[in-house]
């Protein structure tokens, strides 16, 4: 069996919901080399910024990716607002924080399910996705949409959330959190899950830093980096402690994400009673002129929006560097020498969002 074979992995593959293609050179089920190819979802939406009005472009920014949709829209708006020197109303800032934390929880829970599916644990997949519906219910109640909810707007939020609804949400969240404990315990303690995660896809601290890993990837390798510390939206009034694991393997990354879910629940419990009264958006006059890099923390890691305006309604350049794009070099590093059975698990631990990466 010791001859080399090349296995085409993807672009249509049941374990990967999204098209990415890897040519795996394998020898006895060990991956010698992984050669990825991209471009299956490349849309070129950055170029659209030259055809669409900068306020209208928010909708396209939200559709960079359907999973972290809200944070994309919000990050774009934040970059434009900084260029224009706008200070958005306080209530909008708190609502933005609320929605981005809800997005983080829903994204991480979805990811936990997909990971379980990748190592063949169907029951766990179903359990995670069942609970995720509870979070989607909250998102739907507050914004009207399930995954892409169009609540971001240059200058604030597109909708206000009534105070009685805000008061009701914590109880809903607590119910989800209670049930989630049982599931995350399985990820932490179950024998067969640990067999599949511990020591798989090791990424050392130095490699993670040098290759430019971001988000849970970087934090699971022991680097405390979290863009929420920069204090955008209402994060300057909330104490956020970066969650760090030292092991640097798939299990460590799972633990980082699980602990982040609970952290987000805590943040939401702090945010929801403290949303100040007032308007949620402001009138926009003029057009952006200047350039700015906005850094935000997505569920998948640090995301960067670059906006360059020329004083007209149409921006010169919009660029987004998504976390998945930054995590591709570390992924290739981890895939070398792993087992074929581990490929889906390792690919999933970067929480790949190919739509984000290819835009």
């Amino acid at each position, binding site marked *: *069996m010791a001859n080399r*074979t*090349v*296995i*085409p*992995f993807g672009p249509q*593959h*049941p*374990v990967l919901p999204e098209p990415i293609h890897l040519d795996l050179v394998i020898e006895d*089920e060990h991956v010698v080399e992984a050669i990825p190819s991209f471009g299956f979802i490349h849309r070129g939406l950055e170029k659209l910024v030259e055809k669409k009005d900068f306020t209208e472009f928010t909708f396209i920014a939200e559709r960079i990716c359907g999973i972290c949709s809200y944070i994309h829209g919000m990050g774009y708006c934040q970059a434009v607002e900084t260029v224009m020197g706008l200070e958005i109303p306080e209530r909008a800032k708190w609502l933005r924080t609320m929605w981005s934390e809800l997005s983080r929880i829903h994204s991480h829970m979805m990811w936990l399910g997909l990971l*379980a*599916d*990748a*190592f*063949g*644990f*169907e*029951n*766990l997949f*179903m*359990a995670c996705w*069942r609970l995720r519906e509870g979070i989607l219910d909250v998102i739907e109640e507050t914004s009207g949409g399930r995954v892409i909810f169009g609540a971001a707007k240059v200058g604030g939020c597109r909708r206000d959330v009534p105070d009685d609804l805000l008061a009701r949400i914590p109880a809903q969240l607590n119910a989800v959190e209670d049930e989630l404990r049982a599931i995350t315990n399985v990820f932490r303690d*179950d024998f*067969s*899950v640990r*067999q*599949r995660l511990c020591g798989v896809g090791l990424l050392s601290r130095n490699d993670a830093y040098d290759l430019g890993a971001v988000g849970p990837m970087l934090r699971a390798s022991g680097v405390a980096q979290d863009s929420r510390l920069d204090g955008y939206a209402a994060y300057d009034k909330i104490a956020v402690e970066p969650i760090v694991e030292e092991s640097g393997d798939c299990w460590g990354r799972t633990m980082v994400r699980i602990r982040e879910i609970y952290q987000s629940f805590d943040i939401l419990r702090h945010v929801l009673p403290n949303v100040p009264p007032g308007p949620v958006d402001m009138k926009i006059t003029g057009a952006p002129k200047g350039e700015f890099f906005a850094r935000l923390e997505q569920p998948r890691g640090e995301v960067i929006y670059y906006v360059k305006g020329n004083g007209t309604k149409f921006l010169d350049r919009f660029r987004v560097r998504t976390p998945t794009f930054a995590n591709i070099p570390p992924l290739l590093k981890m895939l070398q020498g792993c*087992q*074929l*059975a581990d*490929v*889906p698990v390792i690919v999933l631990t970067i929480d790949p969002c190919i739509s984000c990466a290819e835009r």
Partner: protein
Amino acid sequence: MSAWTRILAAILFVLLSPILAGLLAGLDRIISARMQSRIGPPLLQPIYDLLKLFQKERIAVNRSGHFFLLGYLLFTILAGIEFFIGGDLLIVIFALALASVFFVLGAFAAGSPYSHIGAERELIQIMASEPMLIMCAMGFYVATGSFQVTTIHAQPTPLIATLPGIFLGMIYILTIKLRKSPFDLSTSHHAHQEIVKGITTEFAGPYLAIIELAHGYETILLLGFLYLFFAPWPLLALAALIAVYFLEILADNTHARLYWQWVLRTSWAFTAIVGAGNLILLHYLQRGGTP
């Protein structure tokens, strides 16, 4: 058994097994779904699936592959007939092994990398499960002095009393044979897998139906093996079979898929300890009893 009852048993096996296996699989899917807090498909779903597959278009990937699949089906049925007419257990095991080899050859002939890896893994699974099947036959022989299913079936005391270790080992390899987690390496019924559908990737429509059909016969045959342990008490046997099958579903729903190295290692270790241990102990006791 007279010639006529034998023929009747053979016909009943050939006709009823697919229906029985279909119902069993349907129940399996419903119970799995309930474990996952879903409602699940109708009870007859596997039968609908099978009939639908026969109506699909035939895409000829490789003719020899299809010939091998027919061999797989034929030898599985032959093994089953030999078993249910009360024939020789060794012939049953050899026919079953031959059927598996046909299946693997069929997948190798298909020529896609996924089905190749699936076939390699299937070989490993055969390696993991075959020793236990042979040990089971040996156990029956040591306990009853015969390889004939009729003789084993006619024992006055249930064999579970003397062969508990062999029974445990058979349950273990049943998980492999039913393609349940953590042993769903070569292909898997529902869970998504890194090698897509593994060994069955390249077979479409009626050919996939043949595989499903053969798998159904194999399931019934293996349950027949387990029945022999309780032969004098049919009701207890039925209860035991239901309990075992439920256990398999439970294992499927509480485990991740593991590596082939792990599967090979543990199944050999487990079957060696419980199976061979049981055999040695039994042999020793019998000699001690009649010096």
